């Protein structure tokens, strides 16, 4: 695996004091032989992989292959028919829903279309968890403004989702997912259906979270360019933008998974992906 500048020289990126880890310091998410079907042929079959602390895993695959289902399984929103899923070291496949709620508060999830609550303002959307926890209003306002500043949308504080563009909705959804400093981030096609400029903004935010807070994440996408950008760039906090890594260097903590017809056909680094002999991987890359 290639080396990052971060590994070769002192790390210029500030790391959060509370680096997220699973309870036992092991992988944050583990899938073991997971299968699921909905009134028909299996959507996912025998899926096994893990997400380590501070690792970003990019899940690739064509549309309708089960990527979003896999993400929902990771958060306990769906239950597998077979196999087991460990989230922060706890088996969640058969965990009662009531016990899953506190576990889910440690996970930030960005849905495909943002899934903002359309009857609530941006402030109330971003602060949804904080309001549910009974955090005082002045603290909520301060934290929401901070989260919105992170996604550069502070001006939308009092607006309703209906007055936001598609890209802005995704960024608000990202702010909502980030506000409680989650220990795991799940992104469901955060750039799907967006124009290239807005997609780059979203990917920059994902990278900022990865490099500033070292939050482990599982990102679903079918856009290779987003995946490659995440591997070949890092976020520079001083310049407040992403900068390319030196030629031939990639982020070692950003790795790939690929699905084909419900089966995991690839699990490895960018280098391994680019040199894979698998016919489907080759076709997908081309």
């Amino acid at each position, binding site marked *: 695996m290639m080396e990052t500048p971060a590994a070769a020289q002192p790390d210029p990126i500030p790391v959060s004091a509370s680096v997220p880890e699973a309870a036992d310091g092991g992988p944050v998410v583990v899938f073991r032989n997971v299968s699921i079907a909905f009134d028909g042929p299996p959507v996912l079959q025998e899926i096994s992989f893990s997400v380590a602390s501070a690792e970003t895993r990019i899940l690739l695959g064509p549309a309708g292959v089960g990527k979003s289902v896999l993400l*929902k399984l990771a*958060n306990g*929103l769906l239950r597998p028919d077979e196999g087991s899923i460990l989230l922060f070291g706890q088996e969640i496949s058969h965990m009662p*829903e*009531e016990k899953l*709620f*506190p576990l*889910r*508060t440690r*996970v930030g*999830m960005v*849905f*495909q*279309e943002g*899934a*903002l*609550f*359309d009857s609530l303002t941006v402030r109330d959307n971003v602060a*949804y*968890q904080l309001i*549910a926890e009974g955090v005082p209003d002045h603290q909520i306002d301060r934290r929401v403004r901070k989260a919105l500043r992170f996604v550069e949308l502070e001006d939308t504080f009092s607006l309703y989702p209906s007055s936001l563009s598609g890209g802005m909705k995704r960024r608000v959804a990202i702010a*909502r997912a980030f506000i409680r400093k989650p220990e795991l981030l799940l992104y469901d096609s955060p750039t799907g259906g967006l124009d290239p400029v807005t997609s780059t903004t979203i990917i920059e935010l994902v990278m900022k979270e990865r490099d500033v807070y070292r939050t482990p994440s599982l990102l679903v996408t079918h856009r290779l360019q987003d995946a490659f950008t995440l591997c070949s760039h890092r976020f520079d906090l001083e310049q407040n933008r992403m900068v390319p890594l030196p030629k031939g260097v990639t982020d070692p903590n950003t790795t790939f998974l690929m699905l084909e017809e419900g089966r995991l056909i690839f699990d490895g680094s960018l280098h391994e992906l680019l040199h894979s002999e698998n016919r489907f991987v080759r076709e997908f890359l081309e």
Partner: protein
Amino acid sequence: MAIDTLDRTAKRIVLTVQDYSLFAARAFMNLWTEPRYWPEFLVQSDIVGFGSASIVLLSGFFTGGVLALQSAATLSQFGATAVTGQFVSITMIRELGPVLTGIMVAGRNASSMASELGSMVVTEQIDAMRALGVDPMRKLVTPRIFACISMLFFLTIVADAFGLLGGGAVTVVLNHQDGTQYFSKAWECLRYPDIIQGLVKPLFSGYIIASIGCFYGMRTTGGTQGVGRSTISAVVTASVLIILVDFLLTRVLLAIFPPL
């Protein structure tokens, strides 16, 4: 082939009844444990109670009026138009007030609950809520059920009162009878069992309206078309169940409080 279809349909119906029973029981039990969302309860009470007041009082008023018209025409054949008030009062308070209020509120609120929650399901807002660690059953369903039960109780009283007023207006203005006689007869004939009958039924109707509306909303599939299907199913099922449960309750309540 036909047997297979029947078999599948029967299984689907049994499964739906089972799902609904579990859903409704869970929503009801949630009220007795934390967390409770009182602000949601108040918002829903306003939507169901204040929002439905106009249609309930109008339908109550005109139903009372029609009852007075019809009964006076029949009673006049026996020279008994004096008991029009008694007829309207007993019919409205025991039967038509609760049933009509239930059906009117079902048309307005079971549909709105099903479409609102259905839209939230298809736009992944329900999943987002679960992912944020908030139980949609507690946050969305339980407050709606208890708001509907409590508001339907008061709406039925409003419908009863306006039904009596409507009957009175027709008696005085169209039938040219004595208003004092109408209202005194309407009052004198009432017994506590009549009022209990009339006020127990909306408690069940309210539970049916909200639980059916939320149940169909929460199990919506198939995008915007699915939302439309859920809305229709919610209104039809709630209306039929209200009448069915009204029949069963009347049977039970008449056994408990036999007529004099």
